[in-house]
């Protein structure tokens, strides 16, 4: 059979090839998908699952242990921990999805241009990224959010911005190897403008590695945003965000009221774990070097 160029393959065949890719996910990665979907459902339809209003306080029921009425107990404001944990899923996705989107939107074009153009621009960008690497990411995120103003939107912007070098690096490395390939050279020879070469020719061929990282970076964003909230930076109590809830419950851990901090922590671990499992599985499929012969 003669070689078929990708454009000649029927659309339905391409879709089914993609789906076959999904079925190649390892059992652990599938578990990750299930966990993510579960939290997604909780986040979207949280109203259906919550037994109480997540921010209404019952002054007569402060720090009650888990019971039939309050499944996860109540916190120091007398708010229902179960409903707050469910509602917290909204923050997990609400921060991670826009933050990773921003990282991709900044990082991918920067990586494309730096890799394609090279020269002084590339050199300067790479040195800046190297410089950023010597700062622990969590401390940098904390300090920048604290310095630029403490709001939820700011947390999203800062996380998205700080994580964009991850995507820029990956795309740049791909573009560097593709830059001198025949299809790019012929595109140049055919008189395509630079933006067209960048976004129509190089982008689809260099973005795979970056896309494989999105789930892991989302896990990072969820974790860091919760850490910020735990320290009271960016998101404040009594917002039903998991990190902020752990902060509220921290002092009660040594006096025995464990339920205030334990449950949001477990929810946080599960979501981050699910994203990591999924991300790990994706990387295995996309990166042939990581594939181990079975």
């Amino acid at each position: 059979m003669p070689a078929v160029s990708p454009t000649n393959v029927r659309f339905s065949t391409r879709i089914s090839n993609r789906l076959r890719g999904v079925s190649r996910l390892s059992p652990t990665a599938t578990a990750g998908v299930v966990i993510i979907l579960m939290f997604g459902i909780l986040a979207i339809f949280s109203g259906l699952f919550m037994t109480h209003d997540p921010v209404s306080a019952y002054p007569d029921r402060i720090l009650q242990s888990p019971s039939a009425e309050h499944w996860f107990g109540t916190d120091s404001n007398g708010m229902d921990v179960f409903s707050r944990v469910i509602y917290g899923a909204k923050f997990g996705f609400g921060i991670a999805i826009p933050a990773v989107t921003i990282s991709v939107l900044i990082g991918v074009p920067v990586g494309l241009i730096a890799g394609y153009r090279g020269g002084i621009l590339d050199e300067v960008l790479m040195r800046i990224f190297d410089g950023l690497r010597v700062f622990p990411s969590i401390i940098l995120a904390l300090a920048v959010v604290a310095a630029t103003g403490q709001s939820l939107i700011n947390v999203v912007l800062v996380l998205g911005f700080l994580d964009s070098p991850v995507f820029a690096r990956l795309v740049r490395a791909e573009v560097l190897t593709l830059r001198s390939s025949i299809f790019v050279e012929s595109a140049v020879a055919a008189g395509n403008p630079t933006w067209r070469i960048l976004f129509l020719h190089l982008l689809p061929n260099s973005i795979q590695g970056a896309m494989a990282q999105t789930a892991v970076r989302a896990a990072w964003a969820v974790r860091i945003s919760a850490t910020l909230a735990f320290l009271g930076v960016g998101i404040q109590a009594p917002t039903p965000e998991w990190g902020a809830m752990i902060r509220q419950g921290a002092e009660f851990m040594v006096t025995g009221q464990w339920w205030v901090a334990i449950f949001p922590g477990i929810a946080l671990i599960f979501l981050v774990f699910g994203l990591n499992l999924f991300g790990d599985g994706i990387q295995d499929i996309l990166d042939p070097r990581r594939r181990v012969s079975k």
Partner: protein
Amino acid sequence: MNFSQFIFRRTLMVIPLLVGVVFLTFMLVRVGGLDPVGLLAGPTATAEEFDMIRKELGLDQPLWKQFLIYAGNVVQGDLGESWLSNRPVLEDISSRSLISLELLFWGIGLGTLIGVPLGLRAAFNPNGRFDQTTRVMSLLGFSIPTYWLGLVMLFVFFYLLRWAPPGMGRISLMVSPPDFITGSYLIDSLLTANWRAAHSAFAHLILPVVCLAIVSAAPIIKQTRAIALEVIASDSVRYARACGLKTKTVRDIVFRNSATPIITFVGTEITGLVGTMSLIEYVFAWGGLGQYGLNAIVRGDFTAVQGYVLTLALFSVLVFLVVDIIIAIIEPRSELT
């Protein structure tokens, strides 16, 4: 090129990075347009008082001049005074650095001792049961929030079981700290045969250290496995196998060839772990640099934040440098450039 020349050259190469680091730390505060004046002056201050404080802090100068002043001060070892306590930041930081280093040393040491063997073992039998288990465990380690783990440990081992002391500081208030030798309470008290202090220091160390070790072992397991897999697939190891060498000999070759990338990885990992360590310090009220820095961030004390971030970055640069030098020593193939 001989070795001392190499070290000299390598050290010089750090300088542009250091300038960048100082610049970023400087910009950290300016970029937010954060105004300490309102914080210092209080709500009842007049416009004149505002101007006076502004002048005192040098905030009436143009930005580039402020940077030069700041950089000049940093070079002379002056990190400024805390906006809130008026204490010199450098003094606060240097008195707390050793306290943090003790935690970091034991935590990463234990994490490496757990992580490297597990990662190697997983790589020798990829996709086996052991590999799958360690892989899930390491991903779990990636996912656990450090501070939450610390809180749960305090709940279980202090509140429930009463095995561990409360998460307050490095040694019991009832025990006088040992004489200063290395700065580590545990090592110092052992060296001076002060068993009471050693016992208390050990009891206070164990929970935060285990916490840090769990968190640091996770990426080390993952990366060691990846490195060893690559080495196993390399031509030299395949040749050794093809020659019919004993499994043990082949493994020794794998160990030897994995050592350099693993050391490099652990070195770069320390940067991130310094952040994690700060959170652990915060939870266990360890009183080190990390707790100081986080408190400064939370309170908006930005000279202290600058000093803290700068110290962490300098520490990372130093670690990278040391890693390079170690590798130059143990790796005969590496060129001294």
